[in-house]
């Protein structure tokens, strides 16, 4: 499904600050997999997501989705098949637009944004239903601007919006890191539910070891631009949180929140 082949990525090339992040990095992810990625700061987790999404260019190598090369595709074209939720809840919604307007925009992804009415009235009930599944009461605040919602509410909306239309990939970029533990748990449960319902291939970068172990069917640990631990299926289930924590501590990182 997704293949990263011989990826090279340098930062600040040609300057004294030049640093090599990836050297011959390879990764392949199968259709329908839910991959959790953990790693130390600067290990390349988020950079990997940015490379996949096209937010930053790569120096050499190939990125393929379903054997189609997307290496040189601009970010917004790749976004057609990718949904992404960011660490910052502000990134996934438009704060000055209402909940309804945000939902309507997300609903229109991959369709033309022409001069027709922005909000299709017939879809309002569907939006309400979808929002009520969050159990946050947002379905009664359709005309409230998103900017006045709490971080957790916004992140829940961002998650809904990014998965509203059929996508091949869901990218979760430390999407619970900016939330308080209780809200983070809620969002994580919601994530799991959506991923299972839609059977969408997912990559989740997280600092939270507990989530990484509990959710997903494959776990990758990254360090200095390399994958140093990669177990899936039964192997993953067999590894206890302590084993992983031990490895974690060896590469000396914090244990998330």
């Amino acid at each position, binding site marked *: 499904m997704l293949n990263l082949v011989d990826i090279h990525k340098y930062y600040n090339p040609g300057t004294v600050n030049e640093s090599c992040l990836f050297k011959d990095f390879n990764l392949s992810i199968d259709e329908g997999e839910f991959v959790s990625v953990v790693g130390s700061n600067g290990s390349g987790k988020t950079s990997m997501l940015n490379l996949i999404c096209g937010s930053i260019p790569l120096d050499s190598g190939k990125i393929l989705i379903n054997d189609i090369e997307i290496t040189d595709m*601009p*970010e*917004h*074209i790749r*976004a*057609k098949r990718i*949904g*992404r939720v*960011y660490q910052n809840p*502000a*990134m*996934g*919604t*438009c*704060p*000055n*637009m209402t909940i309804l*307007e945000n939902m*309507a*925009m*997300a609903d*229109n*992804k*991959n369709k*033309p*944004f*022409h*001069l*027709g*009415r*922005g*909000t299709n009235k017939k879809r309002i009930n569907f939006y309400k239903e979808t929002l009520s599944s969050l159990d946050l009461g947002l379905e009664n605040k359709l005309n409230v601007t998103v900017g006045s919602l709490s971080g957790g509410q916004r992140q829940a909306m961002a998650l809904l919006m*990014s998965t509203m239309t059929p996508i091949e990939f869901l990218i979760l970029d430390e999407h619970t890191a900016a939330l308080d533990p209780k809200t983070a748990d809620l969002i994580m449960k919601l994530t799991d539910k959506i991923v299972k319902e839609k059977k969408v291939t997912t990559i989740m970068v997280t600092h939270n070891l507990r989530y990484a172990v509990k959710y997903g069917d494959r776990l990758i640990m990254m360090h200095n631009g390399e994958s140093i631990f990669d177990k899936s299926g039964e192997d993953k289930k067999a590894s206890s949180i302590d084993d992983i924590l031990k490895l974690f501590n060896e590469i000396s990182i914090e244990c998330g929140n």
Partner: protein
Amino acid sequence: MLTIILGILEEGLLYSIMTLGVYITYKILDFPDLSVDGTFPLGGAVTVVLISRGMNPLLTLLFAFFVGAMAGIITGIIHVKFKVRDLLSGIIVMTGLYSVNLRIAGRSNIPIFSYETIFENKFIDKYIPEKLVPYIGLIIIIIIVLIVKALLDRYLETKSGYLLRAAGDNEVLVTSLAKDKGLVKIIGLAIANALVALAGAIYSQKQGFFEISNGTGTVVIGLASVIIGTKAFQNIGFIKTTSAVILGSIIYKACVAIAISLGLPASDLRLITSTLFLIILIVSQDRMRRVKDA
């Protein structure tokens, strides 16, 4: 008294068309677009040249609108495709347009007193009763402003309009929606500059002549009006932002008219404007702080 109010309304509403353009770039797109100083006289040059070649004055407005849109697209392309900073792209286009405007017009001052305009034509002479004649200018401007405002309000509620608002609000989301945020910005700049050129065209027809130097300072008037309007009416729920911007333009022109009427020299007007600007900003911040404290 009536004349002064009439004058303020005429000028304020006429300029509000330009202000709506500045509102799109500055408030919605978060793009301080200086090319406006060039597109305002551009609209004037286009309309005056076409009128003096015998084109229907109403039709020339359409041409001015589209030529203005082209100028906006150029600013957008310079910013988006060549990655020039927003302020600089505006300055580049504004500077270039000065020469372009002179080229279009042929010289720096073209009168059209002897031609028909939307404000003076056979139709008005024939069908408008004598009593209404002093108000006809205002009536025509009100009609145009209402049409422009209705279209803009309508546009901002379309799918394309949503995307435009999203581009200023959170451009990451535009990318997430698989849309090219650069393209959205270009569209926004095109609409904004089209409106500014339209205002410039109407202004030239109202005045009866085109003068190249009349564009200088347009962007300041626009920004001041947008800020006055949005700040003064931000907490009054039933007033749409577009209406607030139009009111802002009228308030701005009223202040200038009052200052002139009081005999303050024109050289001091800019200082008065900036003081007014500052007062409005301080007052609105003050109010916001109080809301937060409560």
